[in-house]
């Protein structure tokens, strides 16, 4: 399972980087979305995949005896997903706006602010 997830993470990173290197504005955003998903998966994977019970300590004992799933990566991934959701919706509005104002989808023509 780890191996499979590692491969998927790699593919997501690679395709994300490939897409952000393209000249199209839309592909740029899709690339960023894929990278964002890749990193969430990586975070999840790095927390360790265990088939364990939730880490709840019963009333009458001091520690957890059995194997438990680390809750922290799940909390981190959840936070990261929410944040990337917000950013991605902003990105989509931004490219819509950019297309309206600049009338182009080609990143190579976006060089007006860099002119001396």
């Amino acid at each position, binding site marked *: 399972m780890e191996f499979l997830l590692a491969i998927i993470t790699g593919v997501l990173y690679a395709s994300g980087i490939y897409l*952000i290197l393209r000249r199209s504005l839309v592909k740029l955003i899709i690339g960023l979305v894929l990278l964002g998903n890749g*990193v969430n998966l990586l975070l999840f994977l*790095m927390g360790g995949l265990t088939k364990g019970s939730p880490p709840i300590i019963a009333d009458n004992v001091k520690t957890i005896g059995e194997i438990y799933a680390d809750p922290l990566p799940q909390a981190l991934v959840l936070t990261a997903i929410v944040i990337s959701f917000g950013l991605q919706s902003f990105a989509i509005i*931004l490219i819509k706006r950019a297309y309206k104002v600049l009338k182009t989808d080609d990143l190579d023509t976006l060089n007006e602010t860099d002119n001396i």
Partner: protein
Amino acid sequence: MNAIITYPLIFQAIVSIVLLFLWQNVKAQRMVSIIGSAIGLSISVVLFNQVWQKGTIAIQMGNWEAPFGITLVADTFAVTMVVLAHIVAMAVSLFSTKGIVASRVKFGYFPIMHLMIMGLSGAFLTGDIFNLYVWFEVIIISSFVLLTIGGKKAQIEGAVKYFTLNMLASIIFLTAIALLYGTTGTLNMAELATIIPEIEDRGLVKIIALIFFLAFGVKAGVFPMYVWLPAAYHTPPAAVSSLFGGLLTKLGVYAIIRVFTMVFPVGLFTYEWIGIVGVLTILSGALGAFVQKDIVKVFSYLIICHIGFMIAGFSIGTQLALTGVLFYMFHDIIVKSNLFLVSGVLHRITGSTKLASMGGIMENKTTLAILFAIPLFSLVGIPPLSGFWPKISLFGGAIVSQKWYVLAALIFGSFMTLLVVAKVWLAVFSKPLPVGSPKKLFKYFDDFNPSEKRILVIPILLLAIVSLYFGLFAEHIQQLSARIADELINNQTYIETVFRK
């Protein structure tokens, strides 16, 4: 008692919520923002005073003991940055009352600005790397909105570049966090400081450190990831540029200093390549500033050049050099914010930001010219002014550690800064205003009534007084920087404070 750490955050959130209720009421928003900034500044000064008197304090959020919960830590470094952020916020709030037009205010300029100050305070005060990431996101989302409010063509174009690189930086940052968590099993900085030296796989630690440097480097604008900065910073109104130029890039430097001194200290990690990146940043910033013909872009490249000073200085890795870096950073926050405000007023006076079509300030507005000279010459570091003193420690650190390439780059950078400032002075202040420049449909400085003019100038005066204080009472700031450098290098107090039961 330590709950005072959270007050700057909670207070800015409250101000921002109050402002949201006043969505359409421009006048009330302006009043609330100024009052809110003033109270926020006094809260942060009280916090600073407490930390200065009693030393580092920490609070565990939700009463989850470290390292399980999120810890907020107020050491001298964090509270100094919080105070500086609030000083800049105060000036920008005042400036925005006339510098930001009503239509922009109606799109939520003020609430977002206060959210950004909250994000900055949070990023400075947190003791947890994932929490740092969350605050970074709060800041960049606010900055996206501030950058795009108004929706002009150049703004949108700048925003696309700014957005892409900052989002990429966040993704890289999160990748680094994932790898760090997988390696160490914790994200609490105090605990990381004790765990990292025991990791056997040094190669992995180095790679994680590299990815962290890449992520923070994009935010700080170091070579070669600075391209978004001059493309974006000249597009929004001066008040927004001032906030960005003064605080956002320095946040990247803050994160580098904090994470590298706590988690990847000099003994464990080679700093050579950080120095090389810093030197290249100085070179590209200095040369970029020299060829630009737009005053705001000149200042943007100067930011890059001086970020290079801090990065190259930091790479020396001794306490002496770190003192210089910290002093330089404090001075730079105030001066750069001030310069962008100055560029806003100059734009209002001459109707342009192109060096060729500006001029005549010395002739027509002598008092203002003298006031504007203070931040400009502070930047160069003419002796009694604030830019001079940190360079003593910086140069001294480079000489003692025999980092000659850093020393050479610092001297080159200072020299180029002098040249660029002289060029700006000649073009804008002493050259007469070019005749025949067409009047634009635009509210010029002279069209404002005297009280409005005063409101535009007072924030500049306020920041100029702060930078004069930094220059004339340099021993206070030097003492403060030395204490922070000591706390950062001998981080036992920090760790003990976090884990105190």
